[in-house]
């Protein structure tokens, strides 16, 4: 695994030597700030209504946190392609693929190294979002276990996003093409949840709608954000990421045959 750690170190260095990492982190924090402020404003409005009405607020801080993290998961769906687009496409463009593939390391070490470096950057965003948890803890009383499971779900979802972005980057030598296609695929995966709910058709005895809903990461993430940790959801995220990384390995290997 020497190759993997060498690639992780180099990739993280490359991310921070270019403006890309800073821009993506900045955009993430800006939009999260806007969303958080908006939610706090809504919470305040509910609170004051409840105070004047003499009852409990109609929305709890935990519910707000759930909405906040669902929005964050969706925002990361947009930002992941910007991080993953360069993973393999850039190597092809710069002809550095030859350096990696003539080094005494296995192709899977390269794929894993690339995946882990992009995943690290995405996790950094998740860590930075802890700032909002801190605000909620200081000025409110949120259910921390629910927030913790939400974070677990978020980290698992991001692994899928990054793996998909990496796979698409391995299929092209253009970063722009990789970014656009990654975004389209990630968006489609999200939309599968709502599209699947409206489909009642069956194929070979299997309800297509159910399959579509199952394939979408949204439903699995929602379970985590409700404070529930189901093994089936963990299996979904881990197996999904594993399959995509395996496919990426095959695509990368096939590049050498052309």
């Amino acid at each position, binding site marked *: 695994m*020497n190759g993997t*750690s*060498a690639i992780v170190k*180099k990739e993280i260095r490359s991310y921070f030597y270019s403006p890309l990492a800073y821009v993506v982190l900045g955009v993430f924090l800006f939009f999260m700030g806007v969303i958080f402020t908006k939610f706090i404003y809504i919470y305040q409005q509910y609170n004051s209504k409840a105070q004047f009405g003499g009852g409990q607020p109609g929305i709890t801080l935990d519910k707000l946190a759930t909405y906040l993290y669902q929005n964050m998961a969706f925002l990361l769906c947009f930002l992941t392609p910007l991080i993953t687009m360069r993973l393999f496409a850039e190597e092809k463009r710069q002809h550095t693929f030859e*350096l990696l*593939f003539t080094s*005494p390391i296995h192709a899977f070490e390269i794929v894993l190294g690339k995946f882990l470096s992009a995943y690290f950057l995405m996790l950094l965003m998740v860590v930075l979002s802890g700032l909002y948890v801190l605000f909620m803890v200081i000025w409110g009383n949120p259910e921390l276990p629910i927030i913790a499971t939400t974070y677990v779900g978020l980290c698992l979802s991001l692994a899928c996003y990054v793996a998909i972005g990496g796979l698409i980057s391995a299929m092209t030598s253009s970063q722009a093409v990789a970014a656009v296609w990654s975004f389209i695929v990630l968006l489609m995966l999200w939309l599968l949840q709502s599209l699947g709910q409206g489909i009642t058709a069956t194929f070979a005895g299997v309800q297509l709608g159910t399959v579509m809903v199952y394939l979408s990461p949204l439903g699995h993430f929602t379970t985590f954000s409700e404070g529930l940790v189901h093994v089936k959801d963990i299996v979904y995220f881990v197996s999904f990421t594993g399959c995509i990384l395996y496919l990426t390995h095959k695509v990368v290997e096939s590049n050498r045959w052309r």
Partner: protein
Amino acid sequence: MIEVNGLTKKYGDRFAIDQISFSVKKGEILGFLGQNGAGKTTTMKILTGFMPATSGTAKIGGFDVFENPIEVKKRIGYLPESPPIYPELLVSEYLNFVSDLRGIPKDQKKKKMDAALEKTQLGDVKNRLIGNLSKGYRQRVGLAQSLIHDPELLILDEPTVGLDPKQVTEARSLIKSLKESHTVIYSTHILSEVAATCDRIVIIDKGKIVAQEAINSMGSAGASSRTEMVVQRLSEKTLTALRAVNGVRNVQASQNGINRLIIEAEPREDVMVELARIVVTTDSGLVRMQPVALGLEEYYLDLIKGKRTAI
């Protein structure tokens, strides 16, 4: 050191290389010569384990390239046509990354990096961004990465392309100096490069090897077929007599200041004697008569045009 047998690579129905076989001894500099698209890079990519072959075998240091690619890659340093560099990294960071990829132990890393920097004369720019370096320096960075693990075999794909004349001379002497501790395969389409650097040459055309021999024997191969004569006076009568000699194929005369004749003839002693006799008897004032070695360039062109065979 290298044993290549019947190596073939097909893209669809097109052969990029077809049944290539050659061997390289330890400590040898082998020039791999051919036009663009002849199959040089494909052969090199297969030898480095970057690309699989359609058929055939290739062994490096006793290890099969296809069965033991990791062992082979440990023994090879490869500089592709475009140096595989990351412009956003410093030279030292880049070499550090390559050392990690090559699995160089931490305690040896600094020593190996310093040695590579010294060999390629990059010490002054080690803390500069690769993206800000000139093409010549980038090429050297590429060479440094191929040398860093002190490989037994160096495969260099057109390492002097795009360099200025001074850099080309420096690169040549660097490659020559590498002979002491490495075996080198060196591809180019520049003939003077081969003559200046290599011990032996493999000429490849349209995916096939058309010649492989030592540089010295190539020069002598056509030496006796061409003769230069310089005379004081040159008349049409002399020229006609020379052209009429049995065995003479062509006579070219040039009269820019000195009267010079280039005579292509069969490499026979009696033809030479007759040529000398005619020049003397016609009172042309013979100044010089000497065999002219066939240039590498002409030899190469003859080979790829099919005028000459030499394997």
